[in-house]
């Protein structure tokens, strides 16, 4: 019955039909409805459920009074702080990514022979599934793996470690993989922006005798400011909430005592391994708060953006 009305709404009222003013006003809602319903189901309902459940012991809204029991467990759990710390550590990859991507994009911008192939190849790591590249790197970084073998063969055996297992090395090793993967993305992004810079400005500067560094700092960099900010925001979002794949594939259990986990992995572990939904809910809420903060940052940043 409802569906019939809906169908009528979309089909039977032509765009310009003046005599059905009311229908015309309602029409947009018909078009937007499926999306809204879907989003309500997949986003809104779960989020409300999660927030509500986090304030109740045992994770179910109708069991017991509202309290912050889960949060006290969460904040006194050292594994949570490990995870949080790791997320912040991953943020450190961003400056490295920035420098490498800028470098590569400027080099490729000069259109040396084969730059298009280079762009395609550099993007490949980003296209391949994280599990795929993650497993390969796991094998390369094993104690008996290729990296160590190479080190041993050139007499630097003392540098050979179990990269993904040792405390101080696991996260940096994964950071390396993340950098390896995301460099292509940054390079392509920056390159696109560079290619849309007004030619005449560059040519004028060359006629005026500007050297490479001057071009870089006075022309390229200012124009790229907004896309750089955008890149930093996107990567920050990645580092803070989308790291599960790496951790799962490269450390399978997040390290002993979840030493190597990130917040999203923490939620996963508490849900499926420790079966403690309450804490998982609380951690989800923390992730939500982080997301909201990122939303604000993003909107401030994109306020000044120019279309690429």
């Amino acid at each position, binding site marked *: 019955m409802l569906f019939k009305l809906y169908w009528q709404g979309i089909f039977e009222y032509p765009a310009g039909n003046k005599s059905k003013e009311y229908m015309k006003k309602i029409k947009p809602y018909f078009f937007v409805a499926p999306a809204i319903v879907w989003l309500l189901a997949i986003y809104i309902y779960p989020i409300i459920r999660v927030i509500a459940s986090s304030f109740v012991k045992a994770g179910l809204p109708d069991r017991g009074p509202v309290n912050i029991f889960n949060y006290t467990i969460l904040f006194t759990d050292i594994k949570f702080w490990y995870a949080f710390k790791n997320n912040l550590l991953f943020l450190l990859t961003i400056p490295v990514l920035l420098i490498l991507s800028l470098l590569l994009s400027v080099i490729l911008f000069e259109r040396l022979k084969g730059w298009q192939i280079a762009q395609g190849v550099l993007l490949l790591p980003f296209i391949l599934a994280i599990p795929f590249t993650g497993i390969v790197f796991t094998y390369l970084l094993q104690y008996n793996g290729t990296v160590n073998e190479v080190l041993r063969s050139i007499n630097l055996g003392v540098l050979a470690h179990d990269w993904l297992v040792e405390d101080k090395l696991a996260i940096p090793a994964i950071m390396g993989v993340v950098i390896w993967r995301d460099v292509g993305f940054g390079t392509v992004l920056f390159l696109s922006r560079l290619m849309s810079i007004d030619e005449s400005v560059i040519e004028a500067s060359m006629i005026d005798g500007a050297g490479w560094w001057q071009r870089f700092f006075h022309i390229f960099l200012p124009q790229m400011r907004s896309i750089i900010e955008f890149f930093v925001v996107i990567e920050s979002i990645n580092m803070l909430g989308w790291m599960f794949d790496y951790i799962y594939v490269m450390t399978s259990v997040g390290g002993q005592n979840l030493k190597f986990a990130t917040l999203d992995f923490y939620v996963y572990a508490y849900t499926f391994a420790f079966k403690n939904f309450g804490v998982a809910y609380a951690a989800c809420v923390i992730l939500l708060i982080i*997301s909201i903060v990122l939303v604000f940052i993003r909107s401030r940043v994109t306020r000044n953006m120019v279309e690429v």
Partner: protein
Amino acid sequence: MMKTRYRKYSPPKVFEGIVKYGIMILFILSALLPLYFVVITSLKTKIDYAGNKLGFPTHWVFSNFIEVIKSNLIFRWILNSLIITVITIALCIIISCFASYALARFRFKGRDFILNAIIPFMIIPPVVMIIPLLLVAVKLKITNTLIGPIAIYTGVLLPFSIYMLTKFFETISQEIIDSAVVDGCGDLRILFNIIMPLSKPALLTLIVVNSLYVWNELLIALIFLQSNTTRTLVVGLTLFKSRYSTNTTILMAGLLIGSIPMIAIYLFSQKYFVKGLVAGAVKG
């Protein structure tokens, strides 16, 4: 006529050239390294690999590939991934085209709210929604069917898709639409026969980027599809790691087979991948 593309005018200094080329080649090689490793390892015998980890295989063998295909449902997994991806993308495009059409064309109460509210959704990690959605799936008895992931992926992709399409639809000239209205076109006609053909590049880009996300997605597929006949390719690949932990050559063969679909698509539509990634940088 002056060349409109930027060219180095100053005489190239040899040293500078070498450095730049060097860096470029260095990064290209490092990007290709894992793929190279996978390919050559999968063509080696186990003994060959043990003695010679990085070099070329002494003789090529295909037994690894056969072993992978024989003892796994890898093609079933590829099929599952394919079904999920195709249906999700289809649903997503349809729903977001409808929504974007209205958002781009009509001014109605709530329009601005929706456009602003959609952005936060793109940032929230799906982890947050998993538990309640899993509970619902259990209640509806749809765990281990492809329905769950399809529904979730569609939901996750909607914000981004609607956002992109609305921005794009807004750029379509009003005159074309007005003349269609004058000719008596209904909304659906306008949407399908005018707007969508004109939006082909944007739609293709969206399809490509969204497919990439769905195909490579791990967490949701891992949780909602646990039986061997329903799991997706990417999840299956992660299982290889424990299954073939001592059999590196077979493992690599499996990884290679699993990554061929995406590599193939990438080679053919590289342009759209690049466009899609950059598209997120349009004015917010």
